[in-house]
């Protein structure tokens, strides 16, 4: 297949700045100091300071050792401890195992037994440890900006509560985030009993409210769903992003990757179930899944799709109606959907999709995005049930212990506040001043409330306007509980006492409901007594604390009945949708605006997390900003280019922000990312990006029509990592289709298992790839003395491009494990980002049409014949006996020759002492097992050599050999899709050797004969044969 891959629009247009960009190893200005100090000036300064500094630096600093007074039995200095806890996020709960060094949490991993994480994690989970040590977290309780003690608040609350008790709490209101927690739910109901006239609002800026409303209309109850993507053969995502922005993305990604591997790969989750690659199906008989995506904005799910249809969000309902009409509905439902057609969509596409879904009854799955209206969710639920998918690929359960998000509850609260009916407002977390719909004007309503109490991690937009501010404890400092999606009861266990005296929502609500100040621990245990039973409670409770969750506590499944009502509703929606789209699509006056949650900052709550701010957006590769995204064609119509500043008018409000061209978006769609533009986030997040909440209304929080963009005569620089480290158009990503893979297998006789890769260092040389998937490479020989690598452990890695969803979890996991610094927007623009593993994103196809996307994580390849080693003048990068390409920081003199000579561009240089100004408290987040690098030193992926060493020493102490799977690199452990395998290449039974035996295995740029230890498994697409030639 001759695909042309391109990284950016600048590349295919061959713009001069792109040429300049990748012809230089270090970008223009990368070698310059800030403030105009040139290199020559620097040398002069250095010469002068050297003579002064030489005399002062001889004395060894005196270091102290401070042991405990009475040592806790379980803490042994130097040995990390691991505790199970839970990170609550919206109504989800992530079960975690947190590593603690001498009492300070440093690294977070998923809990392998917990159903919502399955041992993996996401970028947000990984980055949350930095949030614990955020120096901008609020450190004191304030009343009207004056420091107060907690006891002052308790007293003040006592007076307020007495006043409210008189009239049943008529003037009392609570605004909370959505949650799913037995303790919070219990306290909330106690509070309602105490104050029957209390007003309770639950608001979430990015919420699943529409889905819940849709499911409520079908079932008549508060019901939510869980997806089982591993069971699905045909998946249709309608404006949905289950693989990235959905709170349950970890579980979804794991399931999706499992279905993706089925019938393709030899690396199955269960080693014993390893099939012959030629069979094309697993032992369970499941075939590789096929994903259809219909969406307006490119999402990660769309990037993974086999067939992707660009369609505005408002056209989803008509498309669903057209699809439903083809799915053989009962007559009553079908009648309302007659004459189904969608403007601009080839009806053959819908026909083929319908055929595929019908052929896979019980193995199909339709998912609708949170943005879509309730009617779409109701119809999707009915269709899934109609197709027999309910109970197999999707299951429904009645929510319990939950506060469900509701914009209308916020609206009625705000009108009560405006009317002066609210005397006391308690804001239990959340940041409504920043993220409430603009039309409600929450700030002015808040000003009318005499007593407002805000619980917040920082003195944020809301807390700075409230009468009382109470610092909120981080989840790693809190006692609490939560129900995961599906209902599993999980415990939030603190790893450290609150650093800044923070309080939890449980404690504040406990004070309000019970009238007395009680510790969170007591409140949570009180809730759990009836759950676990009084008999042997402590034993059972300790078991739950150890596991992190109560097994067997899932909520029972329910099966919704199918009625015609959802389809009638859908038909009505289609009628309005069609009339709304009468205007010429893409005309400047009628663009569609879509509000996206940020993959990093979500709704802005993580804005002060440097790791997340610097994490490139998976699709645009932009850091530190949120421009408006438009398709190239829309930009052409409007005369816009990337980085042009526009004024966006929508619903009587306007916002000035830059635009960025994202190929593959539907034409006539403008996408705004939420969560940026905070004014009171802290030193990292304040003033970064543009506040999209200012144009978001309560009537259309997801998408809306009627947006106008007008170009302003200025530009705004954006920092993308997109072009950095380009690979000069060589075939670095390889892909195939399932049919092509099978026919090649049939043609080439597959040798007996284990016949290939007898010699690990031969494996990357192209032996496996000679079996048919790729053309055979000519034999290479080296001019350098070749190493033997036949002793001890020989480490190697594979990355399965077929499983990788490009979610960036590996990048943050690596950053957390290896003390990788954050450099800032300006430095990223100069190509100085420090991530040891990056995720490259390539497009293929027509940029103005619907290009496909592939992701490729690139860490150091650990070449056996490493080009970097050959050019280092001081032997600062050398090979060790285990095949690791090691970087000796102390020898490095910063010539950067190695980086110049690295074909993979994975080396990172410390242009500055990036960690010098790190606040002391942030140093607590650092991994004590990894050296913190100084200025002038090169660094790169080490294959987590500290983990290898730790495991080796542990095995030696235990007197046993290393087992496969003992060493997990940080990226591998975090990967939600299990795309990364790591292990000993000399162990013929190891999973990495099996993965390398896969015919899809290939080495990156293997013609260079660098013999990389990290190899890739080619991506496989599974297109529908019926859709060949259909756009």
């Amino acid at each position, binding site marked *: 297949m001759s695909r042309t891959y391109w990284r950016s629009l600048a590349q295919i247009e061959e713009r001069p700045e792109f040429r300049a960009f990748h012809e230089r190893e270090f970008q223009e200005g990368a070698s310059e100091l800030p403030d105009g100090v040139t290199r020559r000036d620097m040398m002069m300064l250095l010469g002068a300071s050297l003579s002064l500094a030489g005399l002062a630096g001889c004395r*060894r600093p005196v270091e102290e050792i*401070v*042991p405990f007074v009475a040592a806790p039995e379980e803490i042994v*200095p*130097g040995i990390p401890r691991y505790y199970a806890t839970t990170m609550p996020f919206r109504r989800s709960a992530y079960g975690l195992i947190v590593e603690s060094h001498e009492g300070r949490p440093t690294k977070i991993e998923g809990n392998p037994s917990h159903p919502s994480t399955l041992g993996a994690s996401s970028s947000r989970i990984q980055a949350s440890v930095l949030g614990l040590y955020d120096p901008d977290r609020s450190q004191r309780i304030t009343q009207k900006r004056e420091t107060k003690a907690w006891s002052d608040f308790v007293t003040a609350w006592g007076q307020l509560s007495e006043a409210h008790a008189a009239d049943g709490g008529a003037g009392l209101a609570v605004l909370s985030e959505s949650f799913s927690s037995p303790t919070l739910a219990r306290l909330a109901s106690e509070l309602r009993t105490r104050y029957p006239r209390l007003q309770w609002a639950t608001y979430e800026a990015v919420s699943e409210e529409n889905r819940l409303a849709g499911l409520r209309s079908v079932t008549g109850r508060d019901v939510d769903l869980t997806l089982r993507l591993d069971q699905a053969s045909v998946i249709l995502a309608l404006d949905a992003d289950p693989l990235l922005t959905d709170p349950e993305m970890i579980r979804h990604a794991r399931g999706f990757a499992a279905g993706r591997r089925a019938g393709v790969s030899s690396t199955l989750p269960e080693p014993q179930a390893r099939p012959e690659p030629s069979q094309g199906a697993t032992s369970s008989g499941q075939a590789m899944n096929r994903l259809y995506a219909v969406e307006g904005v490119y999402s990660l799910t769309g990037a993974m799709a086999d067939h992707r249809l660009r369609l505005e969000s408002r056209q989803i309902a008509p498309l669903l109606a057209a699809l439903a009409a083809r799915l053989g509905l009962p007559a009553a439902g079908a009648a309302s959907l007659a004459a189904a057609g969608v403007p601009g969509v080839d009806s053959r596409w819908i026909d083929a999709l319908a055929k595929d879904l019908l052929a896979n009854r019980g193995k199909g799955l339709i998912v609708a995005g949170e943005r879509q209206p309730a009617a779409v969710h109701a119809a999707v639920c009915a269709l899934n049930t109609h197709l027999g998918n309910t109970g197999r690929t999707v299951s429904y359960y009645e929510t319990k212990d939950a506060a469900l998000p509701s914009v209308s509850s916020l609206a009625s609260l705000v009108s009560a506040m405006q009317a002066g009916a609210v005397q006391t407002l308690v804001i239990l977390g959340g940041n409504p001043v920043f993220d409430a719909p603009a039309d409600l004007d929450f700030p002015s309503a808040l000003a009318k409330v005499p007593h407002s109490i805000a619980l917040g991690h920082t003195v944020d937009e809301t807390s700075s306007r409230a009468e009382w501010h109470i610092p909120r404890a981080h989840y790693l400092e809190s006692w609490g509980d939560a129900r995961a999606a599906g209902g599993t009861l999980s415990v939030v266990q603190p790893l450290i006492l609150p650093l800044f005296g923070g309080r939890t929502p449980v404690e504040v609500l406990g004070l309000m409901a019970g009238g007395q100040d009680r510790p969170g621990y007591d409140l949570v245990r009180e809730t759990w007594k009836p759950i676990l039973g009084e008999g042997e409670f402590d034993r059972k409770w300790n078991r739950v604390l150890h596991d992190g969750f109560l097994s067997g506590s899932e909520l029972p499944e329910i099966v919704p009945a199918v009625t015609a009502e959802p389809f009638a509703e859908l038909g009505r929606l289609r009628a309005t949708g069609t009339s709304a789209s009468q205007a010429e699509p893409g005309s400047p006056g009628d663009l569609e605006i879509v509000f996206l949650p940020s993959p990093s900052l979500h709704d802005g709550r993580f804005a002060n997390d440097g790791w997340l701010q610097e994490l490139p957006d998976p699709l645009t590769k932009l850091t530190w900003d949120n421009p408006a995204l438009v398709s190239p064609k829309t930009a052409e119509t409007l005369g816009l280019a990337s980085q042009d500043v526009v004024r966006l008018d929508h619903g009587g409000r306007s916002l000035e922000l830059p635009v960025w061209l994202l190929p593959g978006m539907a034409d006539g769609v403008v996408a705004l990312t939420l969560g940026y533009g905070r004014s009171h986030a802290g030193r990292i997040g304040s003033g970064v990006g543009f506040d999209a909440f200012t144009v978001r209304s309560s009537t259309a929080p997801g998408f809306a029509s009627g947006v106008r963009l007008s170009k302003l005569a200025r530009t705004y620089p954006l920092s993308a990592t997109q072009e950095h480290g380009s690979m000069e158009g060589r075939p670095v990503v390889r892909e195939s289709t399932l049919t092509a893979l099978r026919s090649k297998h049939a043609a080439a006789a597959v040798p007996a298992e284990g016949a290939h890769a007898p010699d690990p260092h031969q494996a990357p040389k192209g032996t496996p790839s000679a079996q048919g998937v790729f053309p055979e490479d000519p034999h290479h020989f080296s001019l350098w003395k070749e190493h033997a690598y036949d002793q001890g452990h020989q480490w190697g890695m594979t990355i399965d491009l077929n499983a990788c969803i490009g979610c960036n979890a590996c990048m943050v996991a690596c950053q957390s494990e290896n003390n990788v610094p954050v450099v800032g927007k300006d430095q990223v623009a100069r190509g100085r980002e420090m991530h040891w593993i990056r995720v490259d994103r390539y497009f293929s196809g027509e940029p103005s049409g619907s290009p496909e996307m592939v992701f490729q994580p690139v860490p150091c390849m650990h070449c056996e014949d490493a080009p970097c080693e050959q050019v280092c003048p001081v032997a600062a990068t050398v090979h*060790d006996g285990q095949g690791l390409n090691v970087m000796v920081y102390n020898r490095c003199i910063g010539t950067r020759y190695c980086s110049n000579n690295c074909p993979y561009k994975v080396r990172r240089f410390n242009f500055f002492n990036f960690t010098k100004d790190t606040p002391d408290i942030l140093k607590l987040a650092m991994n004590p097992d990894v*050296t913190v690098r100084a200025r002038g030193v090169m660094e790169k992926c080490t294959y987590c050599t500290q983990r290898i*060493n730790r495991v080796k020493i542990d095995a030696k102490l235990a007197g046993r050999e290393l087992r496969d799977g003992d060493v997990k690199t940080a990226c591998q452990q975090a990967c939600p899709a299990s795309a990364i395998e790591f292990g000993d290449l000399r162990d013929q039974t190891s999973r990495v050797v099996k993965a390398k035996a896969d015919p899809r295995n290939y080495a990156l740029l293997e013609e260079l004969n660098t013999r990389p230890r990290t190899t890739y498994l080619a991506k496989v697409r599974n297109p529908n044969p019926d859709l060949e030639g259909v756009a």
Partner: protein
Amino acid sequence: MAQIFPPWWNKLPIVAALAGSLGPLLAVAGVWYYFSPWYTEVGYRPAQPVAYSHKLHVGELGLDCRYCHASVEISPVANLPPTQTCMNCHQTVKRDSEMLAPILASAASGRPMRWIRVHKLPDYAYFAHSAHVAAGVGCVTCHGRIDEMETVTQMTPLSMSWCLDCHRNPGPNRRPVSEVTNMKWTPPRDAQMLMAQLDRERPVSPPTDCSGCHR
């Protein structure tokens, strides 16, 4: 026409001569200093907040190293004992000794002792006590005759070349694991036999690669 070389250039030969003679001298001085035990601080003997005598406690009373440094076998770090460990005995023994006053104060107030680190490796070197103890490297090999020291003194250079000497040829520094804390152990007469036995029972392959100690 302006002078190309201003008058002070006349001093150039003198400056050059001075630099020419001082430069090598400085280089020699640098090597002299940085390669010497003075720099590696052999003999470093800081005064500790309590003049704890290993000579008394280990040499005369016969305390095992691991009574206080309890984590040495399981952890990379050989811990310093918590105040509580001192108080195990000094609850009753020598309570009124003036030397013991800081320990008693620490135990009473809950404020930890602040000892001065004697044996210090650079931050980029990762040393694991547990691995070395398991391999049968005696305490005395690196720390010297602690049992004879009134004040703990650094006896070995702890430099990289010194580490590597043993990593390249660990045999002479190995002993049965049971004798690791024995300060007075000497190799038996049939040392060769013992070495062979140790290698058979617990073969070691100390890393000589950078990644063995630097991360």
